[in-house]
């Protein structure tokens, strides 16, 4: 069955990350994971760190999407991401280091704001590691 397509744009500060058509888009927002099909109601949501999936037929593209927000406008989805990377762009070594650093900071636990940031960093690094490992096999 030929699904209806819609345009997806992922824009980072440094570059246009992705611009193309998709049947379905999956991403994680602060309110939970959502799947977007063509003709979705207009929605603006804040992104929380997770894996984004752009599905077009048999082709599934995955990317680590960390921060930003998404604007869904009927036949067009614009994701403004502060950082976003394809699996082959992820530096696993760096992610591992970030994970250890964040874990240490969480253990020492000083100050509420720092804890939040460390937790966020930990989540980001875990996503990076997971995704990179999945694709390195």
């Amino acid at each position, binding site marked *: 069955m030929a699904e209806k397509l819609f345009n997806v744009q992922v824009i*980072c*500060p440094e570059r246009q990350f992705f611009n193309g058509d998709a049947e379905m888009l999956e991403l994680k927002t602060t309110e939970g994971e959502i799947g977007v099909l063509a003709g979705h109601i207009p929605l603006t949501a804040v992104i929380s760190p997770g894996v984004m999936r752009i599905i077009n037929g048999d082709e599934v593209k995955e990317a680590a999407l960390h921060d930003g927000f998404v604007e869904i406008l009927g036949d067009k989805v614009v994701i403004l991401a*502060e950082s976003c990377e394809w699996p082959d762009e992820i530096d696993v070594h760096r992610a591992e280091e970030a994970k250890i650093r964040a874990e240490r900071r969480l253990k020492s636990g000083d100050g509420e704001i720092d804890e939040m940031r460390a937790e966020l960093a930990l989540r980001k690094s875990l996503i990076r590691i997971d995704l990179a490992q999945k694709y390195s096999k």
Partner: protein
Amino acid sequence: MASMRDIKRRKGSIQSTGQITKAMKLVSTVKLQKAKTNAEESKPYFEHLYDAINTMLKKSGNISHPMLSGGTSKKKAIIVVTSNRGLAGGYNANVVKLLTKGDIPKEDIIVYAVGRKGKDTLARLGYDIRADYSEVMNAPLYSDAAEIGRAVLDAFSNDEVGEIYIAYTIFKNTVVHIPTLTKLLPFTPAEEKDGETSAEQLTLMNYEPAAEEVLEQIIPKYINGQIFGALVEAFASENGARMQAMDNATNNAEDMIADLSLKYNRARQSSITQELTEIVAGASAIN
């Protein structure tokens, strides 16, 4: 008239200066190309971000948020983007002039300096320099912009400053760079142009979480984005300005060399003539 040797020495020194300026011009041309593509690639992000905030504000009408109405403090934070190195013509001076010749009294300004040249000049003039991010200017990254953004937003939410500005140079094209002072906070929405179509879209828009919360998340991102955009553009402008300055310097050196060559040849000619006259005079004296 200067002696032949003096002229020759001066010509030599100008020639080597000309070579240096020519090399610097080539270097900044290459850097400019890179900076230009960076600046162009980063543009869509900010345009979208700006549009998104505008639509959000129009839809939600009168959200009262400190980031929209401004703080109570009279102080103003200004992020001043200049270069770390000189020899860029009026590039740095023009940005500094925005502050010194601007309407904001000196006592109310807190400077967040990016770029050593601007920082040094403003410090000498007695401005309050709160922070120095000069390292950033060597190669602007988004994370650097985010760090600066966090610092100014902290000052804003502590009510240390009531408004946030950024002074930088817009990169219009290779030859036109416009120094500007832009207000970042409180956010000023764009003028409504074609209200009909956008208003229609707006009524349909849903927010998750609520619009206020989304806005609270997006405004800091907008600030960071603006700062990053300013850094990238300023970097391009810096190299453009340096390229122009060095081009002028090289041209001037060439002009001076041409002038000196003429003088040198004249001096040479007159010395030959003089020698000849002396020989002829000597010969006629013997006869």
